[in-house]
């Protein structure tokens, strides 16, 4: 009796064992899938554009789209996996554009362009939000984002001991949060950037797969831009860095926002993270604050440049240079200190500048002797025989050979005259310029022009007036020549009736009029 019970029990149990298993469907939604190019569904996100998802991984109900799988952006006709996870798109407007995006997904760097060589380790989950460029800049004013676009705000889980880590050559990044533009793609985060070659602490770091990050230099006056060796041009690039950016090649550091680009070197992105700022070939634009120490240009004292734009060209061998434009605070002892290094003090007493903020421009080429320094300022120049004269809106340029000077000079008895020329460190100088003015009164219309030449030998003015007086055509020309050393002066005029008439004034000698002695009589 008991044996059959045992037997039956065993058979039942065996059958149950065999028949109790059931299939279920599981999906690892955090693994980046290949796109099913023929079966993709597109979704439009406000301020971001179109993203794509495999059609079996999206479920749309009541204007809310839920995605459980991989999101793709379309970059140059290629679908690029941006992230994978569980996302909700909501606030669908009348145009079919979702206004909000949230979810949880994999934090990773899209593999395209220069990002293909980025090694991502410890890829991990992160919360995804949706933030406008304006909101991002409110917390990080240097972030390389556009106000009218929106970005994924990606925050890694704090409870994960091992954070996202990605490596470019010998540079390792471990961001805790970052922003992403999936359509470049571009990522931006804050953190330390360090290699054996260089380090930037607490930096904002933006990486663009296709070099779409933009750098726009600050604008400066036409006068300053006119003296620049190379115009300050906008730049596009792959690497954005904000913070204290070292430029070891030229012994300076800039606190601001830098963009590093590569035009000539296809592998420049990787080289940069292998070689660092010192040895890599790149071109870089920086807007920010520069402190130039005494090693930057040999004759410059240490100075601080605000609202500065720095252009560094280190990509083309034989044409490497740095340009710095910006605003500097002139101190009372800046000019004497600088001129003292250049001429041993010959000209120090000839120029004086009030304490003021001026526009400045610095250029240092491969050859340090090419260094130049310009400031746009108001200054006073002491001209022998005339005395101290103000030069208004002047450009004051310095290199190792001479001083370049231009500006509006108030010629005694005349109007402001634009002059330009060179002052050499041995005291020789030549400044030339001219001005014209229009006289328009009831009985006369005259155009008067002046040509002025000021040298260390003398002072010459040539003036010419043409026009009508009392409906009679008039043409008068005059010249004044003054010799500083002898004190001699000659004034010549071409008068309509008398003809050319010259008067000479010589120290201690008979005065002449058209070569004949004359005596002044009291009227």
């Amino acid at each position, binding site marked *: 009796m*008991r044996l059959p019970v045992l037997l039956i029990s065993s058979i039942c149990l065996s059958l149950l064992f065999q028949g109790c298993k*059931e299939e*279920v469907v599981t*999906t690892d939604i955090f693994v980046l899938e290949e796109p099913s190019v023929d079966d993709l569904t597109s979704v439009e996100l406000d301020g971001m554009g179109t993203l794509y998802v495999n059609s079996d991984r999206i479920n749309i109900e009541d204007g809310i789209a839920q995605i459980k799988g991989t999101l793709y952006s379309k970059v140059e006709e290629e679908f690029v996996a941006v992230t994978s996870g569980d996302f909700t798109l909501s606030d669908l407007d009348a145009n079919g554009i979702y206004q909000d995006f949230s979810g*949880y997904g994999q934090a990773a760097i899209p593999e395209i362009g220069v990002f293909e060589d980025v090694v991502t380790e410890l890829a991990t*989950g992160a919360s995804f939000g949706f933030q406008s460029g304006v909101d991002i800049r409110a917390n990080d004013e240097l972030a390389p984002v556009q106000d009218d676009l929106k970005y994924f705000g990606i925050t890694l889980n704090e409870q994960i001991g091992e954070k996202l880590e990605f490596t470019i050559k010998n540079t390792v990044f471990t961001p805790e949060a970052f922003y992403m533009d999936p359509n470049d793609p571009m990522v931006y985060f804050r953190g330390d950037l360090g290699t054996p070659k260089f380090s930037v602490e607490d930096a904002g770091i933006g990486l663009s797969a296709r070099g779409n990050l933009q750098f726009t230099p600050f604008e400066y006056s036409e006068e300053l831009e006119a003296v620049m060796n190379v115009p300050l041009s906008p730049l596009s690039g792959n690497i954005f860095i904000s913070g204290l950016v070292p430029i070891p090649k030229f012994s300076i550091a800039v606190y601001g926002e830098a963009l590093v680009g590569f035009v000539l070197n296809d592998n420049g992105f990787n080289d940069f993270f292998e070689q660092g700022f010192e040895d890599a070939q790149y071109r870089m634009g920086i807007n920010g604050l520069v402190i130039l120490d005494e090693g930057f240009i040999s004759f410059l004292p240490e100075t601080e440049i605000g609202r500065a734009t720095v252009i560094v060209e280190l990509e083309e061998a034989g044409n490497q240079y740095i340009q710095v434009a910006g605003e500097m605070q002139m101190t009372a002892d800046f000019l004497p200190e600088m001129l003292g290094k250049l001429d041993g003090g010959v000209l120090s007493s000839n120029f004086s500048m009030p304490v003021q903020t001026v526009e400045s421009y610095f250029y240092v080429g491969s050859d340090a002797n090419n260094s130049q320094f310009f400031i746009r300022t108001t200054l006073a120049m002491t001209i022998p025989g005339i005395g101290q004269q103000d030069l208004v809106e002047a450009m004051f340029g310095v290199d190792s050979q001479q001083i370049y000077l231009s500006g509006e000079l108030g010629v005694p008895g005349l109007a402001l005259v634009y002059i330009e020329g060179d002052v050499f460190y041995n005291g020789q100088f030549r400044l030339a310029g001219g001005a014209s003015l229009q006289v328009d009164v009831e009985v006369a219309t005259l155009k008067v022009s002046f040509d002025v030449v000021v040298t260390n030998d003398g002072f010459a003015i040539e003036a010419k007036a043409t026009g009508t007086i009392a409906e009679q055509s008039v043409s008068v020309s005059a010249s004044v020549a003054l010799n500083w050393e002898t004190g001699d002066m000659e004034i010549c005029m071409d008068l309509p009736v008398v003809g050319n008439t010259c008067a000479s004034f010589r120290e201690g000698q008979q005065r002449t009029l058209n070569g004949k002695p004359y005596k002044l009589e009291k009227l």
Partner: protein
Amino acid sequence: MLLLINSSQANAQRFFEFGGGFSPWSESHVAGATTEKTPFHAYVEYGNFLQHYSISARYDFSSQYQLENYELNPWFFGLFLNRKLLSFGSYRYEVEVIGGAGLLLEQHRFLDRGNNQVPGYELEEERASGPGFAGRFGAKLLVGKFVGSLFLEMFRSQQDFTAGQFEQQTFQTGSNRLTLSIGYRLNRENNEVTCPTYF
């Protein structure tokens, strides 16, 4: 006097048994799931030597099964009714063949353990609980007050999990097992009747 003797005898026939063990072979009812961790259990049992039925309570823990990137972690309390089908042997070595059935209160932790750590994901861990039932068949070997047992067991339960889909789906979260246990039986005395010997 006879009643007292019977009552005393009846008390003497009751037993309590407690013990624990593990399942060297375990198989989830979810197709494709692999066993990652060995299940362990502890139990107490109450019965009567003279009757064929006993009841036992069991706490089962430490099971873990892996299904692709997901991890099933069940544990349960169970209440079993056991029927002794066959027994033979003596006090020193006795074998009992037993069949049983039970009710379970099962809890499940269903975890996403993919290549990526996703601790902030709301569905990284799905929890579910509910009833189940069980059947078992096996044998006990009693050596004095010590008990060793070997059972084939089947636990059945159903729970709903999302597992990366848009809707929840029903998982058969039970398992089949071969379970080994050791225990200690209180009140087991040598009650063998021996004939008096007169000299």
